[in-house]
């Protein structure tokens, strides 16, 4: 069974000892906002137009507003996902799609989870708001 505490070289350790897990910020930091903006720009390269209607600056502003309204546990989730994603290179849609596909071993699985979570965070600002009782739209990479 693969545990949740196994980080890798590319993706840092993501267990309870992570600073982001211990101390969520109350506002989206400049560094994390920059990561989010780069994420949205990468998603602009998707084969369909799903991500292209909002510019990355507007999307980041909307996401920062959403972030401030979230409970600490959600902000911790965002902090860790964006911090982990910040270490990846390069930043094209094809790279994200490749990283989302697991391969044998723990590190890639960890990476898949980070990328999947990051894409859902991108959908927060780029997809239509869900109704109160509705599951969020499903965002995935081709």
């Amino acid at each position, binding site marked *: *069974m*693969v*545990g*949740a*505490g196994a980080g890798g070289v590319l993706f840092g350790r*993501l*267990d*309870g000892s*992570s600073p982001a*897990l211990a101390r969520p910020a109350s506002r989206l930091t400049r560094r994390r906002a920059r990561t989010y903006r780069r994420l949205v720009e990468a998603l602009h390269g998707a*084969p*369909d*137009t*799903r*991500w*292209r*209607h*909002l*510019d990355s600056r*507007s999307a980041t502003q909307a996401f920062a507003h959403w972030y401030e309204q*979230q*409970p600490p*546990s*959600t902000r*911790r*989730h*965002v902090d*860790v996902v964006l911090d982990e994603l910040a270490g990846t290179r390069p930043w094209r849609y094809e790279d994200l799609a490749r990283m*989302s*596909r*697991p391969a044998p071993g723990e590190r*890639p*699985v960890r*990476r*898949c*989870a980070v*990328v*999947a*979570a990051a*894409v*859902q965070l991108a959908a*927060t600002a*780029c*997809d*239509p*708001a*869900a*109704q*109160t*009782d*509705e*599951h*969020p*739209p*499903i965002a*995935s*990479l*081709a």
Partner: protein
Amino acid sequence: MSSRLRRIIDMGPGGVVSPGSAHDYRFHDNRAYFAETATPWVRMWADWPSLQPDPAYVPDDPDSPGYWRLQALDEQIQAACDDGVKVILMPYRFPLWANGTEALGAQRNTDAEISFDYWDRILPGAWRRYLDNGRDPARYNPSRRALEYRIPPEGVGVDSAWGRFFAFLYARYHRGRSSRGWVDGFELVNEPNWQLWPQRGPSPTDDPFALGEPTVQYTMAQFMQTAQVVSADYGHNTLLLAPSTADSDEITRVVTRFDVFSAALLDALDASGYTAPDNQAWAHHNYLDIEQRVSETRTQAIRRLLDGRWTGYAEDGVASVFITEGGVRISQMRAYYPAEDPLEAQARSVREGWDRHYSDEAAGAGVAMLAQYQTYTDPHFDSGLLDPWPSTGKRPIYGVWASLPSHA
């Protein structure tokens, strides 16, 4: 009988849409959470667009672009079998190639896509706001039903693309298999009275949002007829569950209230001559019953509709209703119980909900299963047992869920 009330955790679509993600049964200690909470059932979602993105390939063709996701599903089902956890597998959504929206799929979040059949996908207020914002999705992107929920124009009969996909799933995972993992139940569709569109016939007035006659029940009846034909080829050896209604109280062009839908479905089944086989169980979702801590449940309202009309799966002579999806959303706890800590309120709602249903009478009569939506919570649909991944913080509900009786 509800003194044998089963428990199930619904993992959501992530394990197939994004293998390796937080809701992949194989990873992130999910198997340990099932063991620790003695949860005997798991619900997995066979997301069809993910498993067969290209109609030129059958799902198990190694050259199919969805084949790696099928392998991930295989492994998750096998892992559950290895753990002694019973699986309910649900085909989910339609690929755009199967429902005639492929061209629109290349234009998502454009006015062309948003405006397509808007009266069946968008509530009137959201549509007006979209118009007020110049039909510019960058300024306002209205909530709407996704393209993947459109009912295929060809229907869902045995010879349809859906019929072939369901037959594929049944052949691959039915209960009679002795290798590669099997499932104990197939759930036919998710919340047809909420997600599928159109729900109704054309508006009878100049107002495009005016209610027409409900039509979605005919599609639901066809799902059940097709599943029955497929199941018969294998001696009805695996449980079938439907219609898995959303428990919404709304009646609009995009939502059909659960009891209106259920009554119309029973009529449609009668009209078609359908007789439910013993392995066809009725399924429903019940977030509101548990969140609102009510004794007069919507589930029992459904059972009253079934009385004398439903011949499917029963235990001790009583028609059973399986709650295959449910849970308690933190957002609702804040709204309903502002004086309570939201996480404690979630745990209390589940505890009290279980107590009401763990009985052969009243709210528990005929209820065969209760559900918990997800292990790690989804920040956008916050009902999980744990904080959002990668935190492993267990919420108060975790201890409550683990303390409940375990019946397979």
